[in-house]
């Protein structure tokens, strides 16, 4: 089972990763967007960490919802509603719980990513965070179905996210700000796919050190 503390670690590690990679995410966004993705995400997760003392006291459902509402009210831009929706949906699916099975986590992440797809109506290949998240969820579910350990399953998911992120490089964007560039968006890695990969990687890291 995945303990609540592991999920708190996940968010804590991710907040740290975002802070560390703030410049790089912003630079990626400067190339095909408006140079704020790292700043946006960091603003949101700085606030999440500030609220952490009270958030960590809640059950997993309320914890995720709290993270989602914080992102929704602090990030803005495209990534705010999208990452906000991800966590809100995860929270809805895990109300009252204090621990999760890998299958449950996979199902909730999947519900969260569905939420992103509904809100932003991006499909795989549109050069968005979906291109990292969708293969990650698929890999996670496959690993969970195959009965793998949480750590290995999330590492597989992170590897899939990384591949998905890299696959955005040759894509032409058709959603978000990068789509304005048309063919000029080709050759650049999507910033949202990059922050999405960091998210799954942070989950793997949290799970593997909890082992």
């Amino acid at each position, binding site marked *: 089972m995945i303990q609540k503390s592991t999920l708190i670690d996940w968010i804590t590690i991710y907040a740290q990763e975002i802070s560390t990679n703030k410049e790089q995410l912003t630079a990626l966004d400067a190339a095909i967007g408006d140079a704020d993705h790292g700043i946006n995400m960091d603003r949101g997760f700085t606030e999440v960490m500030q609220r952490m003392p009270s958030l960590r006291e809640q059950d997993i459902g309320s914890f995720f919802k709290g993270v989602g509402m914080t992102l929704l009210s602090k990030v803005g831009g495209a990534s705010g*509603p999208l990452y906000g929706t991800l966590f809100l949906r995860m929270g809805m699916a895990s109300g009252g719980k204090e621990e999760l099975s890998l299958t449950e986590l996979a199902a909730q992440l999947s519900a969260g990513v569905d939420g992103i797809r509904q809100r932003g109506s991006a499909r795989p290949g549109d050069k968005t965070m979906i291109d990292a998240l969708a293969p990650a969820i698929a890999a996670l579910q496959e690993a969970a179905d195959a009965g793998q350990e949480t750590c290995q399953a999330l590492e597989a998911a992170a590897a899939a996210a990384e591949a998905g992120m890299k696959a955005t490089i040759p894509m032409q964007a058709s959603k*978000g700000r990068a789509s304005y560039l048309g063919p000029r968006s080709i050759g650049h890695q999507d910033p949202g796919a990059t922050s999405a990969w960091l998210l799954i990687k942070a989950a793997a890291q949290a799970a593997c050190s909890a082992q």
Partner: protein
Amino acid sequence: MKKLINAPERAVEEALAGMARAHGDLLRVHFDPTFVVRADAPQPGKVGIVSGGGSGHEPMHAGFVGAGMLDAACPGAFFTSPTPDQMVAAAKAVDGGAGVLFIVKNYTGDVMNFEIAAEFCAAEGIQVESVIVNDDVAVQNSLYTAGRRGVGTTVLAEKICGAAAEEGQSLAQVAELCRAVNGNGRSMGMALTSCIVPAVGRPTFAIGEAEMEIGVGIHGEPGRERMMLQSADEITDILAATIFDDLPFQRGSQVIAMVNGMGGTPLVELYIVFRRLAELCDARGVIIARNLIGNYITSLEMAGCSITLLDVGDELLRLWDAPVRTAALHW
């Protein structure tokens, strides 16, 4: 980065504090969540008009808050859409019982945040209509993009809808009017230099000393084409031709023509562009009924300009001419 700021992360808030101090007769500024609201809001029985978007486009939107234009503006971080909690709080502050119109520029972030806000408002029993402005002809409107961006027509829509709301039109009417304005307005911009987002500290894009970006977005998004720098007349010709190609303004039709500065271009240059634009309109038999020349929807300190043409009938002109009392537009 050379800016008159204290710290990138405090700049928006401090500028709003300055606005609150300067324009106490027109508006109030609320923090956490951040929104700017008409001093005399809510107006009972009047449709409330709320807009918002990333900061860095001043005077838009906070400079348009006041009688005859916006009831509230929600400023985000620089170039970043504001968040739903700001919009919900603004909607509550301006709802006078006749409902609230959200005027939203077509950027993925703005659209989604306003969408979520509208859902929250509906859940709280506030009647909300949203209109998305997407007038930037630089962007090919197709299945393969997020659609056209909302730019200059937003300013004109906010003024015209503000006048309609002021005279008591219903939410449905004002929303319909806003859609009509959006349908008849087209814009195109260009940049000579890049802006610098304060938190980034470096130019958003690199551009050579002899280059210009045609079709640039108001966040420094790359445009249609990187070209060698040309004369003001040639630049005006390019911008206007793209607009005219897109919306066939008829001979004899009336327009409101806006020549907008991006923030770092002096007024004297905007008049040179307007002069040429007027010649081009003359040549097509398009009548410039009203004009607006200056910095209205900017991109921080970017040098460059945009042109907006809005096809108007007498009714829209009447609403345009109606009194407005805001920090940036006043007649």
